[in-house]
């Protein structure tokens, strides 16, 4: 009996040890497809498989998979597999995969990480992706490292002001106001200046007794409807200093200007919407997204990006929505951005990867996402040719045609500037310092100027870390 026990102990030990060694010897992380598999080349006639990583909710992922299947069916040399990664952990996952040398062949990249990857040689040179006579993506959404394109945004997105038409009508009716006078303008020519915007937002802010924020008897501790909410994500805050003649950096990114008086003044005006004028809820990471700010149906107007047409406003909003241009301080401006598609330098199939991305960049091939309003086109012709514009915006999720054309299409064409991460490195580090600094200003514990001045050494460290 004792011999049987010893034999079984030995067998169990060997099985366990073998299992551990086999598991540790595997190159692939569990549950994910990794860098390109197979040594086959499309030129030799065999189908190669390349991977494309993307973030996005289930709707976006399903749309991306449909696009990939369309590409796979359109030719017989390349198969694209989609790797979905949660948006919140996308960068962390990519960084981990980069460290393990297991990056996918291609993928959408977070804007803030592009130049970091480019600086470290992790991105494949795509400057020859387009011939000189081919239509290229807009220059404003081209990432450049040392003047050379390293990535093109997969989509163009701008910031605008979105509003709940039903709630706006209700608040105006309650006070006997003319709705037209309080509707955010869709035409940049009629954009509200900042003081007008604040006054309108205060008028649309009501307490439990029906008094608005301009009323001396307004009860700021019992607000039932807020006139506005500004998205306070650090990268979105940049539009306000730009509108005020300042900015986080100089125009070419060679100098940091985050604590200039113009920049501080612009951000202080944002903070004062809550601290002084009581027409905005307290800035909160919970209520930043449009789905929670406008989705609460307690906020009339909120700023955010154009992708919301496809991710929330079109499919899920329980109200009729409208869009207008941003209010301005000194200069009418919005910022554009868009997650770029990149070819990672570790790919074994760079030509196939670039072919896939070039195909994908054509609007006809990512049409599901454009038609849904999640992506805006990246080629200039879609902003100038009426036929293309109509094809783009005459779709179910979009608001009224002329409104969207004026407030988004024309606005993007004429007034958009690149977000700084297109030409400045380490903006993710910089933005986390900005987030910390602004947390002192949002509560009123410091003025914005004091908070920015206090963290200047950290801002400089962050800015210099990218050089």
């Amino acid at each position, binding site marked *: 009996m004792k011999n049987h026990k010893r034999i079984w102990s030995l067998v169990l030990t060997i099985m366990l040890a073998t299992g551990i060694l086999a598991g540790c010897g595997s190159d692939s992380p569990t549950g994910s497809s990794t860098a390109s598999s197979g040594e086959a080349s499309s030129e030799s006639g065999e189908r190669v498989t390349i991977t494309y990583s993307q973030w996005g909710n289930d709707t976006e992922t399903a749309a991306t998979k449909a696009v990939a299947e369309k590409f796979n069916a359109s030719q017989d040399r390349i198969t694209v597999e989609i790797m979905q990664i949660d948006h919140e952990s996308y960068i962390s996952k990519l960084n981990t995969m980069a*460290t393990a040398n297991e990056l996918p062949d291609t993928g959408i990249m977070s804007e803030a990480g592009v130049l970091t990857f480019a600086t470290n040689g992790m991105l494949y040179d795509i400057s020859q992706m387009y011939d000189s006579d081919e239509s290229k993506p807009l220059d404003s959404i081209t990432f450049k490292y040392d003047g050379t394109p390293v990535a093109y945004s997969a989509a163009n997105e701008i910031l605008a002001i979105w509003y709940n038409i039903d709630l706006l009508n209700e608040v105006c009716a309650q006070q006997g106001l003319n709705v037209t006078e309080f509707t955010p303008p869709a035409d940049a020519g009629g954009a509200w200046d900042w003081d007008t915007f604040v006054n309108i937002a205060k008028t649309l802010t009501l307490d439990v007794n029906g008094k608005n924020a301009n009323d001396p008897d307004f009860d700021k*501790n019992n607000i039932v409807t807020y006139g506005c909410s500004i998205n306070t994500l650090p990268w979105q805050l940049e539009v306000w200093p730009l509108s005020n003649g300042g900015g986080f950096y100089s125009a070419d990114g060679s100098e940091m200007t985050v604590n200039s008086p113009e920049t501080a003044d612009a951000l202080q005006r944002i903070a004062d919407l809550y601290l002084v004028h009581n027409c905005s809820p307290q800035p909160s990471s*919970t209520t930043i997204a449009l789905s929670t700010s406008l989705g*609460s149906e307690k906020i009339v107007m909120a700023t955010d990006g154009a992708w919301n047409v496809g991710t929330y406003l079109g499919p899920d909003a329980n109200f009729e929505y409208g869009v207008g241009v941003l209010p301005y301080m000194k200069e009418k401006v919005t910022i554009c951005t868009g997650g770029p598609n990149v070819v990672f330098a570790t790919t074994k199939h760079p030509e196939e990867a670039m072919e896939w991305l070039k195909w994908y960049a054509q609007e006809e091939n990512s049409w599901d996402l454009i038609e849904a309003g999640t992506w805006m086109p990246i080629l200039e012709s879609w902003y100038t040719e009426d036929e293309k514009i109509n094809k783009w915006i005459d779709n179910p999720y979009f608001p009224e045609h002329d409104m969207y054309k004026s407030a988004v299409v024309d606005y993007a064409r004429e007034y958009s500037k690149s977000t700084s991460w297109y030409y400045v490195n380490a903006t993710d580090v910089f933005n986390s310092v900005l987030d910390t600094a602004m947390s002192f200003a*949002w509560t009123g514990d410091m003025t914005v100027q004091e908070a920015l001045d206090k963290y200047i050494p950290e801002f400089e460290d962050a800015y210099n870390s990218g050089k």
Partner: protein
Amino acid sequence: MIDLPKTNTESIIKKKRYRNKESLTAFLCLIPVFMGLSIISYIPTIAVFVLSMFDWNGLTAPKFVALDNFVRIFSRDMYFYDSVRVTIVYAFIAVAGSLLYSLIIALFLNRKIPARPFWRAIFFIPYMLPAAGVFTAWRWLYEVNYGLFNYAFRILGLPPQQFVQSPAQVLPSLALIAVWCSGNLIVIFVASLQNVARVYMEAAEIDGANAWQRFWNVTIPCISPIIFYNMLMALISNLQVITPALAMTNGGPQNGSMFMSYIIYMYGFQKNRLGYASAYAVIFFMIVGIFTAILFKTFGSQFFGGGEKK
């Protein structure tokens, strides 16, 4: 006539051979565990100590910088001193609150109350819930503008609170969630209370002790090893807190919840500064070690009954 072994020496040799074979079997069974622990724990721990002396972004070759990372953390890091403070303060509030709450609930659950299994389940369930769901739900409870707590306060005529939006309130607010989730401590306390010998309680009753005196002089000493164990486990897990910062606060407001584990994650996986994050981890390891040693030194001997010097 009794049959004895031929000689005592042969018997001893037989026993020794038997023990050696048993030892060999034991060692063989331990090998997989040791290998697993080495790969998952020991080797990565050593690697962290080594990495802490390098500047490495995970994308290019590491560069040896000796103690530069540590010098930078102590002299120039914008989060370090705040993070040490908030981590320690949070741990103390959460540990004290959890122990008190779980002991009180355990005392009630140890009594003959109606539907006792139901109440035990009710208090244990929060511990089993997925952390992400718990913090998402509590984020909405605490929401300044639309949360349930402030809605109730408004109805009661009380001023709304900032909760996790306030630097002063964020730590108690997060600690409250930890207390609510301490169902595991309740279960352990209930088990220990059931093992308090009835004879001690009866003797105390005979001597005229009231309920508080019986609790303080009989129950507490009997369960003191369990109190110490729960305190130690709660301290270590609450010093290592990260989920509230990840799911709710991102370390804010004003670094008010910038826990050390969160900073390590942020530097290591979001900012790609693996060497720097490793240096942070080494410092954190020392802090946890110091607190554990203090706990053993001050309370360990008392709770294990070795307080009297011989």
